[in-house]
């Protein structure tokens, strides 16, 4: 590594430490920090909660980064697929009750059905709309996915109206110690997010098809020469990305309220994460998600009126990271 490169890494480390130290400094100055055991436990709870939230963020991010990494497609409809996943989960959760059976389907079990549906949807979008424009200017697929997103919002609105929905799944607190509690649904969501993203990571690392996806991401022409059916890889990648987004939707549905128009929030978060972590870098997205979520929680917890400043803090960190390292935390410099 060049010396300049190494200097940048040090600078980046220092910047991130400073970013995380800022809420503490402001908190101490404004009297939001108490120097007792109880407050320390509160702080641990907040960090833990940020970590758990980061898991859900990562679910939005990894799908987007995968699609971008392989095809250089900026999928603006990503958040809408998350939203659709939330709706699919909600529909299946309520379906047995609706049919008069008097019970609900477990929202996690519904993934067995929703993920293949989302995969098929992504596959279809790629086949019908995007395959023709891969490798062209980046604006074309961006506009196409933008249109797809709007169509999805209106379709869901038309069917389900704009009412907010939520699934009251495992609403109780989980006692980690006497004083540290986190939501059971948050723990479950995090575990699911971790399992799914690690599963996909291992698939990319070890499975033949996963290796082919990575090869295509590195260089589609060479991959084609080596006998990889690049068109098929594109279809699988978009399907996989959509399935990951839909899994994120399932996790949203058991924690938060959603309506047809909340999709754009997930898109914004997903973009922030992949820009922070490194565009196209899978582990980078997971790292970016956790950093972003923990910082947001710390700011909200310690800074006066911090909840209104969460986004400002998050994006300041992203801009700072990009200035020091334009390719993101783990991204590879584009040549």
């Amino acid at each position, binding site marked *: 590594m060049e010396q300049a490169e190494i200097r940048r890494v040090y600078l980046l480390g220092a910047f991130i430490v400073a970013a995380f130290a800022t809420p503490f400094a402001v908190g101490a100055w404004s009297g939001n920090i108490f120097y007792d055991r109880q407050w320390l436990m509160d702080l641990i709870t907040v960090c833990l909660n940020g970590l758990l939230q980061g898991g859900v963020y990562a679910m939005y991010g990894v799908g987007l980064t995968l699609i971008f990494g392989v095809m250089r497609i900026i999928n603006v409809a990503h958040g809408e697929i998350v939203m659709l996943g939330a709706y699919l989960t909600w529909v299946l959760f309520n379906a047995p009750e609706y049919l008069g059976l008097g019970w609900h389907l477990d929202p996690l079990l519904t993934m067995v059905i929703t993920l293949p549906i989302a995969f098929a949807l992504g596959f279809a979008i790629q086949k019908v709309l995007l395959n023709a424009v891969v490798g062209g200017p980046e604006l074309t697929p961006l506009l196409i996915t933008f249109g797809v997103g709007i169509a999805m919002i209106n379709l869901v609105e038309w069917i389900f109206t704009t*009412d*907010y929905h*939520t699934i009251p799944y495992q609403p109780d*607190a989980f006692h980690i110690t006497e004083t540290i509690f986190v939501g*059971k649904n948050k723990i479950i969501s995090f575990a699911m997010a971790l399992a799914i993203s690690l599963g996909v990571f291992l698939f990319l690392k070890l499975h033949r098809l996963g290796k082919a996806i990575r090869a295509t991401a590195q260089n589609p022409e060479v991959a084609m020469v080596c006998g990889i059916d690049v068109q098929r890889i594109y279809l699988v990648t978009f399907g996989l990305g959509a399935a990951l987004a839909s899994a994120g939707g399932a996790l949203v549905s058991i924690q938060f309220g959603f309506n047809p128009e909340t999709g754009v929030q997930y898109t914004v978060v997903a973009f922030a994460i992949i820009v922070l972590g490194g565009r196209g870098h899978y582990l980078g997205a997971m790292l970016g998600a956790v950093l972003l979520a923990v910082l947001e*929680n710390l700011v*909200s917890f310690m800074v006066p009126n*911090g909840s*209104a400043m969460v986004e400002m803090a998050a994006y300041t960190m992203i801009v700072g990271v990009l200035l020091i390292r334009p390719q993101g935390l783990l991204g590879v410099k584009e040549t």
Partner: protein
Amino acid sequence: MKQHIWGMLTVLLGATLPFSGSTVLADHRSGNVVLVGGAISQTGRYAEPAGRQYNSVKLWVDQVNQRGGLLGHKVLLTMLDDKSDTQTAIKLYEKLITEDKVDLLVGPYSSGITDAVANVTERYHMPIVAYGAASADIWERGRKYIFAVNDIAENYQKGAAHLAKQIGVKRIAIIGEDSLFPRMSRKGLEQWAKQLGLQVVVAENYATQKQGDYTALLQKIKAQRVEAIFSNSYFDDAAAQIRQLREMNYDVKFFASTVGPGLPRFAKDLGPTAEYVLGFSQWEPNLSLGHPGMKEFIDAYKARYGTEPNYHSASAYASMQVFEAAVKQAGSFDREKLRDALSTIQVRTMFGTYKVDEKGMTNHEGLTFQIRNGKRMIVWPPHLAEVKPILPVPKWSER
């Protein structure tokens, strides 16, 4: 091409000229029709309450046509969608007044949007009954063509503040979305808190349309040993907050929200978590309130939409009743005559008695309810209370 543009300009100019005066009569329309128009959030974050108001307006239009219309004119309704967006609403109201030339204008939803739209309606001297707004600010700006039916935002937490005093709460937190209505509600509550001796230890607004995780904010409130939380919130934020209080196992003496719990979905979707939450209501479908025509309205609404009306539905319907009475009194659709009628008449609606002061505000008094077994039960003011509130609310571990 150039000629074409000049031609278009002349047509445009010609179209606007006849309406630079203030009087527009229904007679200008063919077929003896009077056009009632407005824009309301049919999509977006306000769509849930706004949809209920739209339902009531539609119901009224059909009923008034069955009764023979307004002054013998058949009522035609055109309701546009502002997508819960202020800029869109402003454009649509300009269009409604200048292009569609509506005879009666009905309001949008939310205080923020109404406040922005009022600048337009004021300019064209179009009287409007603001069923979707409750911030006193709107009437503090010396406007002459906007009339209130609702209790003001500043009073939304009045009942809950009194209940806090009753059960000996000292330290409170006020949180809410960073938009006009929650800010006004907070302002009013801060005054009530001062008057009642409640100490506001945390007061924060959060960014509009935030992700939905309020745990860190609630943790901050917990660290300050807050006993009761007043949340000036709509549906999604209120729902997230009460869920997260339960996840954190944080026992407050109560959680009071402004708009969210009044929406029927709140108790339904959240189930047991929503129990004992305090909420505010302008009106409840409860015949003991004793307003004339309540039963007929409730029955008709239920028959048509398959669900009970809530206060959003009721205030919109009452506004249309007020409009109907004002048109009858004015005897025409003339904007100035209508304005005069709206500012002087007294109408007993199914929502309460409409009578405005010189600013255009009413003294309609709101209710505070507690969710009990999934139902909203009035607990304040005392003379209207259906049940005694259960306060402090039971601990999460004992439910």
